[in-house]
């Protein structure tokens, strides 16, 4: 009896030891799943699909990519959060979850996830239709104050890049323009080119070729440094309005997350793989062609960046009166 029992115990122990050893050495044992929070063809989709082929050879497994758009990414975020905490389901996303709380879209934010890698951040430029008279942001703001509500600004729904920068401009300059929301950067620029809106703040990646072709006029970059592009320069937003200084550089970011309670071994493997993948020339070239800034940060450094971004942006929206829940109620400190 005793013999049988101890044999059973030994087998169990052996299985356990094996399992632990395998868990430590073997991640990943099977293919991973990557959930992209925006639809095919968008900015997040592009970055996600550009990084994975560089990471797969390092992991030795494939990452099967799935688009799960909807609710500005809230559905994908929820999905990854309710999946198993084994590190096999990754969230490929943009900055949006940091605003879910104040916009009352979801209770989740990146605080509930572990940043495997923040790959890149985008730069934002304010561009105007060529038929408008403004040569600088100052002239635009002066004109807007002269005829309030008459100038049309291309925007997006709450939380989008043009929306947030529009709010930022409103907070700092106090101008009054008519925002017309479109589905994103692409449709917004299309409306600008057609003259259906007068100006729009957008991702540089979406606008740079139009600036280079001279089809739109850049007024300012949302940064404290001048933007030197391919054959053009754009003055910093702080040149005309130094008050923007405490908010800039502001822009969207893209990255990869896993659940907070994924085993540390798996986190380590993922972090290393994405760190190497993001350092490949192929990915660097991709980021450069999108006019974005390579970040390639993870762990605490990424956490700090995320917290700062959330604090700056949520309080900015709060001050502009665009939130449903105050960031103070969510425990987000004022910057």
């Amino acid at each position: 009896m005793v013999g049988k029992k101890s044999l059973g115990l030994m087998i169990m122990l052996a299985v356990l030891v094996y399992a632990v050893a395998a868990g430590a050495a073997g991640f990943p044992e099977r293919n991973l799943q990557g959930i992209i929070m925006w639809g095919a063809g968008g900015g997040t989709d592009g970055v996600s699909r550009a990084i994975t082929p560089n990471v797969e050879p390092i992991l030795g497994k494939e990452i099967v990519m799935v688009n799960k758009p909807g609710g500005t990414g809230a559905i994908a975020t929820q999905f990854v959060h309710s999946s198993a905490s084994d590190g096999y389901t990754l969230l490929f996303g943009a900055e949006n979850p940091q605003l879910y709380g104040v916009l009352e879209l979801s209770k989740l934010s990146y605080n509930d996830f572990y940043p495997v890698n923040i790959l890149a951040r985008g730069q934002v430029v304010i561009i105007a239709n060529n038929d408008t008279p403004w040569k600088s942001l100052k002239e635009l703001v002066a004109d807007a104050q002269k005829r309030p509500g008459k100038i049309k600004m291309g925007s997006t729904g709450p939380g989008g890049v043009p929306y947030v920068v529009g709010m930022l401009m409103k907070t700092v300059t106090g101008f009054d323009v008519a925002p017309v929301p479109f589905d994103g950067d692409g449709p917004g620029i299309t409306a600008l080119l057609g003259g259906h809106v007068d100006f729009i703040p957008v991702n540089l990646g979406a606008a740079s070729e139009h600036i280079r072709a001279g089809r739109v006029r850049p007024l300012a970059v949302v940064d404290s440094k001048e933007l030197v592009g391919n054959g053009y320069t754009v003055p910093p937003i702080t040149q005309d309005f130094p008050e923007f200084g405490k908010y800039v550089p502001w822009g969207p970011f893209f990255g990869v997350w896993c659940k907070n309670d994924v085993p540390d071994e798996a986190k380590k493997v993922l972090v290393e793989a994405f760190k190497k993948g993001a350092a490949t020339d192929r990915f660097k070239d991709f980021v450069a062609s999108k006019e974005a800034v390579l970040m390639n940060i993870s762990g605490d450094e990424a956490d700090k960046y995320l917290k700062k971004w959330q604090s700056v942006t949520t309080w900015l929206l709060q001050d502009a009166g665009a939130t449903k829940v105050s960031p103070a109620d969510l425990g987000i400190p004022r910057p």
Partner: protein
Amino acid sequence: MTGSAISYFFMAWTDMSLLFLTAIGTFAGIYIGAIPGLSVTMAVSILISFTFSWDVNAALALMVGVFCGGVYGGSRSAILLNIPGAPASIATSFDGFPLAQRGEAGQAIGISTIVSGIGGFLGIIVLAVAAPTVAEFALKFAPRDYLLLALMGLLLVGSLSGESMAKGVFAGALGVTLGMVGMDPMTAEGRFTFGYVSLLGGIHFVVAMIGLFGVSEALFQLHSINLKPVKQDVSKIVPSWKVILKYLPISLRCSLIGVIIGALPGTGGDIASLMAYDHAKRTVKNPSRPFGQGAYEGLIAPESANNAAVGGAYIPMLTLGIPGDAVTAVFIGALYIHGLKPGPMMMIDTPYMFWFMVGNLVLANTFMVLFGLTGIKIFARLVEVKKGILIPCIIVLSIVGTYAINNSMTDVYWMLCFGVCGYLLKMFGYQVAPIILGIILGPLMDQSYRRAIMSTEHNFGLFLLDLVKNPLTCVLTIVVLFMIISNTRLWPKLLGMFSSTKRS
């Protein structure tokens, strides 16, 4: 310069591997397109990762093939099973399926293949000779013009109502309401979500389409499960020149509609084919049979238009770097990954890419017609399969296809619910097509109207003035008004008044 353009145009033709990849892509595309739920958008985005390490030309050759084949492939399942394989072939099922029920599935596929080819080539010709002009024209469309286009599409409810206009209007309104479910993209407010995060994404219209067409049709056919399937006549599947020439004018007109709607950044093949169907129904005085009962004109119109929309969608992509539809949005991403910069400078920096893609499209279109015309006999026999076997297969296919859209079980539940509701609606004489029309066009109408009114500082008077002030908008407004008035009792009286004043 011209020499290199020609050499790039024929590059995919002369390079064996590119030729082969285009062929493979087109062949695969036809089957991806035929399976509802498996979309071309999805296939092309998977191909981005798959072709990551390839040469850009090879990657594009494969993707272009899938695009062309996929748009065409959707008609197969629409004709044979009454399940549109893609939203762009919804209108195809209106007359395509009745044709199959009459035993003319082979002929229907044959003629739809030929007109798809005609549409495709017309789209490419417009792309090659007038891309910059058409792109500038497309930019002129303001939110108010999209509103008018959506209205024009919605007026199609009148033609699709079946026995009762009131029931058609009800179905259309139901569709518009369903289209509103989910997060309002302008205010980030949940509409009809009842607090569920899974409803924030809204109801994908393909989900509704598969349920309302596929499952409800399968359930409906249970009534006649013991009826012997119609014997298919597969003797004359490739249409004769005489037939092609007879339908050429309508095919060309609808192709033109397809190119323009395809080139508009806010609309794609689905709306193009519906508008083309509507156009055919209004302009063809003596169709081969009444529309909705197997009129060839009703099959030709949407099939010409949706393939012409492919060339149309390329126009803003290649000239401005703006996607013309969902698939070209993914193409733009692929071009970036391969180190190209789609945008207004692409035609200047890398003009050869333009000619390579045009040449590749021509090749893919040729393969599409070739592959389309082979194997029709086997496909047509699909309709002859015993219903006891066919119906479960349709339901399984519908579930798998629905799950594949967003990998979501919520979608599958919605789809099944749509199937049962669609069946009940059919039992009581309601048509399901207006519901889909509402789901597709409702959000476009809603958002365009709100954009238009926001552009006029919420001033309704100014908005009405806008509708007649701009020449393009004015034309569209007149068309919409004509479409409405010409269907009322007022119209004959007006005509009478006009002719009597002329006489006096």
